[in-house]
């Protein structure tokens, strides 16, 4: 860092393009949206910035509060599932031999190489009424002669409901949960586990008293990396959810498109952003508790 201070020109030359990019393409548009949230719609494309708080008050309408509440609920379920499914995966990868580990990590990262839209459409093919899951179930149903007992096969409704949305978000965000937890487990000093076994702890007890507490910071990172983007997701509920599984992201998108009410959409966006900031403020608390546990190893 010292060399930066001694050569300020180099510092600015390296930093300026990034700073310029951030200001022109992020902060300025964000500022426009922020201003717009205090505006009124005057015509199809006319918006007057009047300083009104009407848009924010509208957001507290029970309809939107209900959607917001559902969004938080879905995000929490998704986060929980990602941790519960992701932790064992991270654990297995961290404890597998180095050669195998490389391939397993590659497998975790492979989905990043495929566009999320394509992956989500693929899920439609899997879950729809005449999709792969129902197809397989029907085949098993016929094979086991269950139609004689319960009548003809009824396809399971797996698409355009909350189940599909939760599945879709978990599917997309699982790698974001696995990677930080893998990093934390991999860092864990193996001699601690041996010491616990030596002192009489079973594998399960070692996991509960040593592994889990010492990888808490990885879990905290995973929670935030999944929960925050899940709150703002709109593509997955749009494609897999149908009208009953709308999340707040869909409402915002609708204001900017179908409803053509940009000021209200802007206000909702900022409310979501403030909520995210509030959650981020919780992170240091989570991590501090975890760091206290991990000590200065």
């Amino acid at each position: 860092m010292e060399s930066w201070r001694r050569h300020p020109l180099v510092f600015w030359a390296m930093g300026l393009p990034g700073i310029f990019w951030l200001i022109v393409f992020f902060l300025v548009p964000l500022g426009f949206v922020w201003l717009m949230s205090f505006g009124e719609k005057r015509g199809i494309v006319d918006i007057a910035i009047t300083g009104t708080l009407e848009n924010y008050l509208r957001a507290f309408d029970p309809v939107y509060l209900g959607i917001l509440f559902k969004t938080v609920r879905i995000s929490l379920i998704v986060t929980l599932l990602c941790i519960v499914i992701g932790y064992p995966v991270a654990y297995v990868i961290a404890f597998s031999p180095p050669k195998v580990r490389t391939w397993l990590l590659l497998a975790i990262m492979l989905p990043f190489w495929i566009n999320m839209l394509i992956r989500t459409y693929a899920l439609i093919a899997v879950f729809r009424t005449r999709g792969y899951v129902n197809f397989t179930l029907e085949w098993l149903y016929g094979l086991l002669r269950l139609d004689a007992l319960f009548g003809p096969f009824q396809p399971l409704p797996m698409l355009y409901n909350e189940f599909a949305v939760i599945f879709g978000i978990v599917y997309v965000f699982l790698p974001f949960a696995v990677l930080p937890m893998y990093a934390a487990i991999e860092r864990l000093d193996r001699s601690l586990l041996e010491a616990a076994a030596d002192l009489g702890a079973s594998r399960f007890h070692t996991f509960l008293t040593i592994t889990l507490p010492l990888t808490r910071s990885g879990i905290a990172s995973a929670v935030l990396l999944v929960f925050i983007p899940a709150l703002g997701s709109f593509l997955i509920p749009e494609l897999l959810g149908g009208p009953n599984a709308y999340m707040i992201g869909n409402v915002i998108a609708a204001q900017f498109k179908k409803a053509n009410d940009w000021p209200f959409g802007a206000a909702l966006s900022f409310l979501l952003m403030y909520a995210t900031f509030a959650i981020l403020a919780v992170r240091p608390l989570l991590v501090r508790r975890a760091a206290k546990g991990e000590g200065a190893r």
Partner: protein
Amino acid sequence: MHASAREDAPRAVVSLRGIRRRFGRVTAVDGIDLDIREGEFFALLGPSGCGKTTLLRIIAGLERPDAGRIFIDGADMTTTAPNHRPVNMVFQSYALFPHMTVAENVAYGLRLEGLARAVIAERVREALALVRLEGLEDRRPDALSGGQRQRVALARALVKRPRVLLLDEPLSALDARLREEMRLELSALQMRLGLTFVLVTHDQDEALSMADRIAVMRNGRIEQLDEPEGLYERPRNRFVAEFIGKINFFDSILEEVDEEGLRVVLPGVGPLSLPVRCLVTERKAADLALGDALTLAIRPEKIRISRAGDHADADSDLFGGQDKADVRLTGRIAEWAYYGGISHMIVEATLPQSGEVRRISVVFQNAAKETVEAFDIGDAVVLSWPASAMIVLTS
């Protein structure tokens, strides 16, 4: 301090029979039979990669042997998990749980036994008193010094009242002064508790000063198992002789052997007669044939060094008058390392018959201030020693 009081019919606490362990193509432990006696301080000594740590981990149950059996207190524990073995280990890195206080670390093993809260508290207090750590109960490991962490690790293992305490290079992470202090403390602790200690170390001083018996290992095998002075004075082969302390080797040829002694030729020096007790290898005098190649060895501190010119008068009462200086070489001091109490010198000595120059290691007791000042690099000196001070190794 090597307790000879323990000679009364010692019982084996740990018995290893034909233990083998391979890692890929490397054989770490290659068929070891070993009995560790009740209440002894046992050391596994060897260079890195000799398999000593693997052997310790096999006793602890952290490693499974590919072949062989482990008995602890007579019970076959070959396949018993580490958490069901009556042994506890002090890890090289100490492996203290960083998210627990000192007291919680020590109590960890007791909580698992399902003891009453009050009993646990009492035993934790006792264990911390034993290693003199009272008052640090609520500290976390990262707020402790290296020596204190070592004591916590010790207390955490001892509080379980194991049948055997395993110590994996416990002093290697400490600085020299603290290591010395802990060495004495560990010995005292072992004496006081009467517990069986098994120490793994690559440090010969550590093993010699603390252990009752030492197994010197190389390439997964035990080269020699003996008491410290046996290893030092009667090493069975060149590896052990060189690994423990410093030593000078001379190749020689056997000329004559009978019940009285051996007569050998030291090339460049001449014929020598040695008593039969100098033969320390497993081969007996009777097995030796004339013309056999032997290795003669002498420890550096058994060589007498004097200034060229004034050796004549000193010769008579040298070595307590019992032995005379059978070997006498002249040379110059080439290197000198001063350690305070002793000086270690390398003398370039000329062999009288062949004129060949040999570098000979000599340890000199700095008994009087003046004698230290009397020597300097480049000084002409005379080295002498009685033949009986040498040991004979068969190669």
